[in-house]
């Protein structure tokens, strides 16, 4: 019995030593300082909620010391964590200085405990997730999916303009110039915009946009159409810029605008 006990405790000691060495040797195997802290916290054999952060900080610092002795190169973030834990340790040990600003040692320790608990929770979740039935491993999709035959229906489009242009092109051969607009009955949006910018400053009250049509463009239907379209587009542009407000009481009713700066 006693021999067994001695054997057992010997074995424990060996196991512990091996574990400690493994920690050091496997430092590359850790997924960062938080992971190392979580691993170290297990040696306290308590619930993460009741863990002693002070003790954990000591363990971590001892680990880093050991690694230095063994001339293991630790990544920078391990050293940053070590410096921070040293700071935390001193805060936890010294009586709180009322002059000092910032969070207390307890608050910092509580947050570290929270981080460890959260990381552990995510690890558990990951394990639970991977333990679920998985597609292609535990359950399966249809082995012979039936193809959805895609029948491609091609429709060709051509409009009357294409047709007429095509015809005109042939009948007039080389003289044909494709789609030339008669520019002298076209009022562009740029022109309308320029004109309106000069005028809206005076438009405090609601005014029909038709009144912004350039002089002499209201009579000829073709000119009137072009100028109205350009003025309307320009009004929208000005509204977008926040310069004017636009309203229309109903379909086909006059469209009115007023300057925003003055109107309110």
């Amino acid at each position, binding site marked *: 019995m006693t021999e067994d006990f001695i054997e057992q405790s010997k074995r424990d000691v060996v196991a512990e030593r091996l574990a400690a060495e493994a920690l050091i040797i496997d430092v590359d195997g850790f997924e960062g300082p938080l992971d190392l802290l979580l691993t170290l916290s297990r040696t306290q054999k308590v619930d993460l909620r009741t863990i002693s952060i002070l003790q954990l900080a000591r363990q971590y610092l001892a680990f880093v010391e050991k690694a230095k002795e063994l001339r293991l190169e630790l990544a920078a973030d391990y050293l940053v964590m070590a410096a921070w834990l040293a700071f935390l340790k001193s805060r936890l040990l010294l009586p709180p200085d009322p002059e000092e600003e910032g969070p207390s040692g307890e608050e910092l320790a509580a947050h570290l405990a929270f981080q460890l608990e959260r990381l552990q929770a995510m690890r558990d979740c990951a394990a639970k997730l991977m333990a679920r039935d998985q597609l292609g491993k535990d359950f399966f999709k249809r*082995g012979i999916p039936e193809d959805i035959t*895609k*029948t491609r229906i091609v429709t060709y489009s051509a409009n009357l303009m294409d047709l007429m242009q095509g015809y005109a092109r042939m009948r007039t051969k080389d003289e044909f110039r494709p789609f030339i607009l008669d520019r002298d009955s076209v009022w562009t949006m740029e022109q309308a915009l320029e004109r309106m910018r000069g005028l809206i400053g005076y438009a405090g009250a609601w005014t029909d946009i038709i009144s912004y049509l350039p002089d002499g463009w209201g009579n000829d239907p073709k000119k009137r159409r072009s100028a109205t379209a350009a003025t309307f587009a320009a009004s929208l542009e000005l509204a977008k810029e926040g310069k004017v407000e636009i309203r229309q009481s109903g379909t086909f009713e006059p469209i009115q605008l007023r300057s925003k700066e003055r109107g309110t």
Partner: protein
Amino acid sequence: MSEETLPEDTDTPEAPQEESLFEAPPMGEQERMVEALLFASAEPLTVKELNGRMPHGADAAEAIVHLRKRYEGRGVRVNKVGDAWAIRTAPDLGFLMQKEQVETRKLSRAAIETLAIIAYHQPVTRAEIEEIRGVSVSRGTVDQLLDMEWIRFGRRKMTPGRPVTFVVTQQFLDHFALESARDLPGLKELRAAGLLENRLPPGAMPTVSEDEDLQEETNEGQSELFED
């Protein structure tokens, strides 16, 4: 369900199977298994293959009979494919497996020009179209327009060789929102609409050409296509 078995053979007639350490699962379970196997397998499975994959003592053949019955009148059915079995869509629902994809393409320039000539000059022969376009009309272009049902064969021309003619269809008129082909704007109107350069070559107005020297095209035996 009892685990005990008498050491002596009981003479029950429904136990002709070879003896096994494990009892075969109940038939309901076997049916589920066959269902899952046929569903997941990448190819149809024979009874032998099914039995090979099911627990010892299972009877896939019988399970299939049950499963088949269960799927009678359903959206899928258990079909025999050669000597194997597979789950397949019920034939009356095959139409669901087709997806129509509508693709709109711009009509080629050659097709538009050919179409325009037919619309303005109908009834018009292929030779006349070529005369106006100044290039030969490919078979494909005409076929495409026929296929789209925008043109059809008109009466043969009463000229030597009796060439076939083309006319536009009601579908064409519907597509271009025209009452009749006569509503197409003439060159004068095209010009007025700014579609044309002002100067017109003399005699370029659309007229129904009655040229008679265009007879090469005539001998395609398509008289059966003349409906009108």
